[in-house]
């Protein structure tokens, strides 16, 4: 209680002071007080205070209460924004060079950003056409081998699917399906190649594929019924109302068409041309549908009821595995559920339905794009900071006239957004240019993405531009709004020391990035070239490998030999150094000891044709007898024979047979650069040959290829002629490295462009702002070279520091990712590490010196004359 009870309640007085308009307060408070004292005399203290309180509360009305903001509330927003954009455009056109640097730099990096946005939005739009996606799951299997190895498979057996559907509760619908409905479908004269699946009617309950014709409840009930996609039907019949027609499978089994399906969308991970009824397989009673352990090409998709209980279902899956596992001899299975959303992109499970984008790939593309984007934002930040002094007068005047911090901040952010929006328009053009390059970049991207723009993408692009504008403009805007108008207008130069430090850091990061990418590219390129030119121990030059397909190799061979440009033809089961391999345990004398040797079956002329060097023995006879073997030196070493000639005639056993060694070849590389040299055995007459190796001697490749193709047609008129030069094939074998090379190449190009642009801007600004200083130095006798040194010196430190950070990091990344699995790699020396960085420094110095030269050469009288 206040001591003096004869005053108005203090709290209410204060409250009133708080909310009352400033210009009214004195009068109104006076009136209230005067009345209070009158009331006090008339009614006494309690009533007076009560009245006072009521009076104050009744003051709460629009005409008395102060407005929330102390300023005038009405702004002419349109005019203000118009002014901002006019000023922004004037600024852009006044500093053409800086604007160009900013816009081009941003545009280049934003093109990469647009690619990333389109890519990611496409990847995450996969499978989004299914209803009930939150309740869709796929049953997956873990395969436990007896040696303790576990492999995760994306598959589960049809048998498991059927048992889940029939014997277990907790599923709304279970759709087992299996691949392998593959081959030629005929209708009279026309035929098409089909890649299809077997499924049952529940397929349509679980997954949202639409039937255009036919009954989804019964289309797959009967054996030998098939649903064609619209495209397949069109190809086969030239029309799509084909329900009820009979078509023929390659072995002349008739299939009845019971439905026509809308084509699976391009963003479906399930893609197929036709669905045959699972009953077809079930009638044949083959292991694909009857065995719990045959999981390889079958998938089980399940729809769970609402309010599903994952734990309960997992218990059921475990129970099923427990019941069925005793039937499996070589391995055990455990089952699990995978969310439908986790199928694409995925985290490496074996045997996916189709190519699935690895999650790491998506992440790495996003990360790389972000790095490039940040680099470009740094440019904007840097140049704006550097030039903020020039705009200080404008800021001062604006502040004096009444602009608050928010207004100025908004203005600079709008400017940055404007630049970003202009840049995004240019980058859209660049995006179209690099799109095909990106799509060709690697296997996964080629197989799964189209980068077709959806309308929503344009919105993303715009938002992206705004975000980039805000990001780039944030720091300079904050800094510039802090300028004190008094200082600016008085002419006191504003201290920007904080900005200078930051600028150096940003330039440093940019250069570290460029150098890192450049070093990575240099090393990857050398390693790639090394892999391609790697001396395999046999020749691959001018060798054309032809796929035999379903023909007899000998017939084809004689056909090809008739072509004049052919120097030799041989045949082989597989082609070495392309990533394919076969191996077996080989025993010699001691039946308890064995050597793992890789094997390959060849035709008679193979060794001479491929330029293998026979060290001892007669080699193979013309006709394979199936019991002769040619081994390599390493194999001899493994089994303990020292002289090649001693090996001839020795008996070894593998593939459950005894073989006689009739030759020894010089070691050669059977695997890729990822494999060591291994013991090796050539056999003859053991396996079918899938490839013919045609050695060509020609100057006119096209004519020769045409001749070879017509020779092929003599033998096989159905299948197309499939031939590939060995060297091209080897190149494909290293395509993952090629993809990294292209990615890093592209990114380093972008990063270098951006950093050099930024540097150019900084150099120009530096030279301009120190023009007077340079002139005075020159008058006092400084030489051109000393001036150039003065101007470049500050950059040199940055370069050295960023090289120190970038090169070890690049080396680390190279070792960890690109050559992590390679056994044979290049020696990394000084030049591999430093050449990228040196090149960049050279270009950078050239850029700087072009500017400093201009400044240093200018006539001092010119720059000193005006003050």
């Amino acid at each position, binding site marked *: 209680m206040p001591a003096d009870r004869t005053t108005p309640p203090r709290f209410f007085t204060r409250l009133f002071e708080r909310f009352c308009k400033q210009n*009214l307060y*004195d*009068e*109104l*408070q*006076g*009136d*209230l*007080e*005067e*009345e209070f*004292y*009158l009331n006090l005399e008339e009614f006494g203290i309690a009533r007076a205070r009560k009245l006072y309180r*009521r*009076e104050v509360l*009744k*003051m*709460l*009305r*629009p*005409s*008395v209460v102060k407005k929330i903001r102390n300023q005038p509330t009405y702004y002419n927003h349109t005019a203000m924004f118009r002014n901002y954009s006019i000023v922004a455009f004037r600024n852009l056109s006044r500093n053409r060079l800086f604007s160009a640097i900013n816009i081009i730099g941003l545009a280049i990096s934003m093109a990469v950003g647009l690619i990333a946005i389109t890519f990611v939005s496409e990847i995450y739009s996969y499978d989004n056409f299914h209803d009930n996606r939150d309740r869709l799951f796929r049953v997956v299997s873990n395969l436990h081998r007896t040696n303790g190895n576990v492999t995760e498979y994306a598959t589960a057996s049809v048998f498991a699917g059927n048992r889940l559907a029939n014997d277990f509760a907790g599923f709304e619908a279970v759709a087992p399906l299996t691949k392998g409905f593959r081959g030629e479908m005929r209708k009279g004269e026309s035929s098409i190649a089909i890649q299809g699946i077997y499924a049952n009617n529940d397929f349509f309950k679980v997954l949202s594929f639409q039937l255009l014709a036919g009954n989804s409840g019964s289309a797959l009930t009967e054996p030998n019924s098939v649903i064609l996609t619209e495209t397949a039907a069109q190809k086969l019949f030239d029309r799509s109302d084909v329900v009820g027609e009979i078509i023929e499978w390659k072995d002349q089994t008739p299939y009845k068409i019971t439905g026509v399906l809308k084509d699976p969308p391009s963003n479906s991970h399930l893609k197929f041309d036709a669905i045959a009824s699972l009953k077809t397989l079930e009638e044949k009673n083959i292991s694909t549908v009857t065995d719990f352990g045959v999981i390889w090409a079958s998938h089980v998709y399940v729809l769970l009821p609402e309010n599903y209980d994952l734990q309960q279902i997992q218990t059921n899956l475990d129970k099923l595995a427990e019941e069925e596992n005793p039937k499996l001899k070589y391995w055990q299975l455990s089952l699990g559920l995978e969310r439908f959303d986790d199928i694409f992109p995925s985290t490496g499970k074996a045997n996916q339905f189709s190519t699935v984008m690895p999650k790491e790939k998506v992440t790495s593309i996003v990360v790389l794009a972000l790095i490039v984007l940040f680099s470009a934002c740094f440019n904007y930040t840097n140049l704006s900071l550097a030039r903020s002094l020039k705009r200080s007068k404008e800021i001062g005047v604006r502040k004096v006239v009444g602009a608050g911090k928010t207004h100025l901040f908004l203005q600079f952010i709008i400017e940055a957004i404007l630049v970003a929006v202009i840049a995004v328009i240019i980058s859209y053009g660049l995006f179209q240019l690099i799109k095909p390059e990106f799509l060709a970049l690697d296997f996964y991207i080629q197989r799964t993405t189209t980068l077709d723009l959806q309308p929503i993408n344009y919105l993303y692009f715009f938002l992206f531009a705004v975000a980039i504008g805000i990001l780039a403009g944030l720091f300079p805007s904050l800094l510039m709004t802090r300028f004190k108008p008094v200082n600016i207008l008085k002419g006191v130069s504003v201290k920007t020391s904080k900005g200078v430090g930051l600028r150096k850091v940003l330039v440093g990061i940019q250069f570290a990035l460029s150098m890192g990418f450049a070093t990575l590219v240099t090393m990857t390129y050398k390693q790639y070239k090394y892999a391609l030119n790697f001396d395999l121990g046999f020749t691959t030059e001018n060798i054309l490998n032809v796929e035999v397909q379903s023909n007899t190799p000998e017939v084809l061979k004689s056909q090809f030999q008739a072509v004049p440009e052919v120097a030799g033809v041989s045949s082989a089961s597989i082609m070495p150094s392309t990533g394919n391999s076969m191996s077996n345990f080989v025993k010699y004398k001691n039946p308890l000891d064995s050597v793992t040797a890789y094997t390959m079956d060849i035709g008679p002329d193979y060794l001479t044709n491929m330029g293998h060097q026979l060290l001892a023995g007669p080699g193979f006879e013309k006709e394979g007898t199936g019991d002769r073997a040619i081994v390599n030196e390493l194999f001899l070493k493994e089994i303990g024979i020292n002289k090649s000639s001693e090996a001839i005639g020795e008996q070894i056993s593998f593939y459950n047979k005894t073989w006689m060694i009739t030759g020894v070849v010089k070691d050669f590389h059977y695997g890729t650069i990822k494999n060591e040299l291994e013991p090796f055995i050539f056999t003859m007459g053991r396996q079918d040959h899938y490839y013919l190796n045609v050695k060509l001697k020609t100057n006119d490749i096209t004519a020769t290829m045409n001749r070879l193709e017509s020779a092929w047609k003599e033998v096989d008129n159905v299948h197309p002629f499939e031939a590939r030069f060995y060297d091209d094939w080897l190149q494909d074998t290293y395509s993952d490295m090629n993809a990294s090379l292209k990615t890093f190449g592209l990114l380093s190009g972008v990063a270098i462009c951006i950093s050099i642009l930024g540097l150019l801007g900084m150099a120009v600004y530096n030279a301009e702002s120190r023009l007077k200083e340079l002139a005075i130095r020159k008058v006092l006798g400084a030489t051109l070279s000393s001036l150039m040194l003065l101007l470049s010196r500050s950059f040199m430190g940055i370069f050295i520091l960023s090289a120190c950070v970038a090169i070890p990091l690049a080396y680390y990344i190279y070792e960890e990712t690109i050559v992590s699995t390679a056994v044979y790699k290049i020696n990394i020396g000084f030049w591999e590490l430093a050449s990228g960085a040196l090149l960049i420094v050279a270009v950078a110095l050239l850029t700087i010196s072009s500017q400093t030269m201009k400044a240093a050469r200018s006539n001092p009288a010119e720059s000193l004359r005006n003050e």
Partner: protein
Amino acid sequence: MKGTHLGEFQEIILLTILVLDDDAYGVTIKREINQRVKRSISRGALHTALTRLEEKGFITSEQAEGSPERGGRPKRYYTVSNRGIEAIQEAKALRDQLWSQIPKLRLQHPYAG
């Protein structure tokens, strides 16, 4: 709101100011109205009405030095402008006219008819 319409409450205030003559400021106007009209109005409501009247140009005001009983705070004295006088006269004329139109009988026997 800047019409020339004169509300009932505003009319009372204008008349009160005229009655008070030289001594019309917040407290006195309020007290006068409270006593004569027998209705309790708040200072806030009065303020709003005064502001409206001033906006319409019916009254003018000027600030004057305060007295000790109000903590030395300034007062605002109100005077009715010529327009204000016109307005209440008009209002009065309208009413008089209406009064004169009412048949005598009705007045004497309010419950008739």
